[in-house]
């Protein structure tokens, strides 16, 4: 039951759920939470490949550490942006912002 195919399918399911969340949530913080769901699925993929398809090397796990680092930095910047938006426009719902629409 723990083989590479099942781990990849599990990662794919979580990634698809996160994609649905990113595309449909209106709350900006909800979009950021869905991005974190997608990144968790990516980490799962990397660890699965490291366990089953690599001999003696830990590069999948080290790549996963860097994915977590970038996720933390991106969550911090995204939340700072949301707070700046909230302060200036008093709204965090994504369909209220149409300033850049042509």
């Amino acid at each position, binding site marked *: 039951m723990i083989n590479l195919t099942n781990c990849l399918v*599990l990662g794919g399911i979580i990634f698809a759920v996160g994609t649905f969340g990113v595309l449909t949530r209106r709350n900006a913080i909800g979009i950021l939470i869905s991005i974190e769901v997608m990144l968790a699925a990516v980490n799962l993929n990397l660890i699965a490949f490291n366990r089953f398809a690599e001999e003696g090397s830990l590069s999948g796990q080290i790549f996963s*550490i860097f994915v977590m680092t970038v996720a933390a930095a991106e969550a911090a910047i995204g939340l700072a942006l949301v707070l700046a938006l909230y302060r200036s426009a008093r709204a965090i719902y994504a369909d209220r912002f149409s300033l850049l629409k042509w």
Partner: protein
Amino acid sequence: MDLNGSFSTSDALFVFFGAGAVVFAVLAVSLRHIFYCALALIGLIFCTSAVFVLLGADFLAVVQILVYVGAIVVLFLFSIVLTERIASRAIRQTNEQKGISALVGIIVLGVVAYIAVREHWPTVPLSEPVATVGAIGRDLLTTYLEPFEVASVLLLAALVGAVVLGRERVKK
């Protein structure tokens, strides 16, 4: 099946935590109150950490709990609290793109599942999992030193950027 070909404890744990991860992911993208979505994200992180342990990445499991639950979700909870006054439970949480987004999600899952099931992956024979802390530490400081330093600069840039974006505007 595991090394012996029978359904063992680790298989049952993998099914349990995998199903839990999917349930928490669905909750995290669909609940109405955004606070419960952050809590569902905590559940998802715990379930994926358990799957990491089953896949032999013990250090990564603990680091994921520390970084995600301990820092990122706490950030989310703070900003949910700070924007509480305008986010209410009565407002609908999903926009009008639900149908096409579900279709896109199903297409993504279909492509990944098709490739994962049909492909003959070149696998190595499974060995006993070893502790990875020392090996990761050695690799980060020898083989992967440049990405490590670049990640430090990235974190510094994110820190400065978050401080600049988040400070109060001085009213003239």
